């Protein structure tokens, strides 16, 4: 029989010992070349040819369309590209800055909420309640609405002591919404740690807080690293929503350019800039998740 409180399942072994195994860089290269490794050289040739044919046909179809010249001049014009690039890039730095601040606030606020929610005992009821209200509220409001409400509403209230800047409230909206999501991710990680681990920690005489801090949270965070990293990718894009507040970020700059010239190339510039960050980030997350998974299956003795 298992111990009470555990549904009979053995604790999942989550440990990993990366150091001795292979330096990460070696693994990255290995996994890229591993893409083709098994099939050998012929497979590489087949893959290349079919890729060229596939994309060649796709591009040919687009370019041969009767509307292509018009589309090209409106969305892919070289002059407009270089004309709008400096402004959009400057705006993009603002996106990066907002992303940076949000990234500083979110992990901390989310952890706070998750910990509050997993405290036990009647004395902590108000904390749990607060955490539940927080997550329900900020997960329930569409991010766009939250940005508008906070960004236009709160500065208008002119509350003493609080910053009035639209930028501040934009970041606050992002941080609140993403903290609510991230707190739930943390919480799922905490719940995945077997109950017996908590018992073991308490049995050592650790306080509830110490048990969380030293025994539960390190395992919980490790459980959810891939999910957290996906959230980062999505945050990086959602930062663009702040442009609704009139902040001159990349999207706003693109919009301004378009309204002046009736040419949409500036939006393509903004798109490319976002892709420049999010694609490598996504690749990294995929690689990391794969590595994480293979390491866990190795450690399952």
């Amino acid at each position, binding site marked *: 029989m*298992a*111990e009470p409180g555990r549904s009979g399942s053995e*604790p999942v072994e*989550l440990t990993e010992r990366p150091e001795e195994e292979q330096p990460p860089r070696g693994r990255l290269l290995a996994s890229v070349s591993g893409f083709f490794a098994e099939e050998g050289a012929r497979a590489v040739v087949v893959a290349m040819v079919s890729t060229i044919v596939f994309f060649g046909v796709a591009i040919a179809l687009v370019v041969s369309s009767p509307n292509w010249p018009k589309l090209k001049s409106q969305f892919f014009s070289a002059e407009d590209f270089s004309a709008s690039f400096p402004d959009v890039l400057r705006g993009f730095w603002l996106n990066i800055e907002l992303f940076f601040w949000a990234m500083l606030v979110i992990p901390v606020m989310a952890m706070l909420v998750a910990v509050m929610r997993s405290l036990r005992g009647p004395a902590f009821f108000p904390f749990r309640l607060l955490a539940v209200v927080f997550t329900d509220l900020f997960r329930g409001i569409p991010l766009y609405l939250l940005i508008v409400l906070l960004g236009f509403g709160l500065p208008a209230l002119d509350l003493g002591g609080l910053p009035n800047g639209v930028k501040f409230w934009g970041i606050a909206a992002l941080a609140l919404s993403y903290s609510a999501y991230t707190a739930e991710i943390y919480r799922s990680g905490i719940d995945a740690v077997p109950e017996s681990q908590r018992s073991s920690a308490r049995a050592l005489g650790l306080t509830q807080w*110490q048990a969380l801090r*030293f025994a539960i949270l390190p395992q919980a965070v490790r459980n959810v690293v891939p999910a957290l990293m996906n959230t980062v990718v999505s945050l990086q894009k959602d930062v663009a929503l702040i442009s609704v507040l009139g902040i001159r970020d990349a999207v706003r700059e693109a919009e301004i350019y378009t309204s002046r010239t009736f040419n949409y190339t500036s939006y393509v510039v903004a798109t490319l800039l976002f892709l420049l960050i999010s694609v490598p980030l996504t690749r990294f997350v995929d690689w990391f998740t794969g590595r994480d998974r293979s390491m866990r299956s190795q450690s399952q003795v």
Partner: protein
Amino acid sequence: MTDDSPKLVLEGVHKSFGDKQVLNGIDLAIDDHEVVCLIGPSGCGKSTLLRCVDLLDPIDAGSILLDGVDITRKGVDANEVRRRIGIVFQSFNLFPHMSVLDNVTLGPRRALGVRKAEAEANAMELLERFGLADKADEYPNRISGGQNQRAAVVRALMGDPDVLLLDEITSALDPELVGEVLSVIRGLAERGLTMVLATHEMGFARDVATTVSFLHEGRVLESAPPAELFADPRFERTQQFLRRVSEAGRL
């Protein structure tokens, strides 16, 4: 408190989960240096009893006295009590993200405020004694089940507990690893550590226990020295249980 008063006393301990009455008036007195083996069919409440003694589950009624002091009373610092009682569970509950040494020193360092160097010196001494010195820097998933379980015993012993509780600590082990863990427990018994252990290993209970207590329907049906209880159980229930166990080849 006098010297010959029992170390640990359970008086009318009741515990239920929902409608299910698991402990139904447990009475038990355990003297210093005694080794009490709890036996009984699966689900009779052995684990629950041990968890209640370590205050991991609150009891509904009755009292538990450690050195004559009721530890289930309101206002008792549960963390303080847990530091005086060690417990080892059935499945290895070392923390997987920490090395053996960190696992073993976590309690002393965080709960007792012992300095790192001192805690590690103590830990190494104990690990040495249990043949684990060379595993100090390993992670739990890199060592065998038996080594895990011995490390868990070391961890429970680090605070120098008054009483050690062991919950079927060999039942999740491969048969060839059971011996090494049992011999560790035997060694502790010889050193006079007060222990309460739930076990299905009747041979071991006979060997190491000073008292064997048979649990039935949430009560201690009978308690006696092993020679007596195994040879000549007083109750029909006990006989039945022992017969079933011996048919299963575990006696």
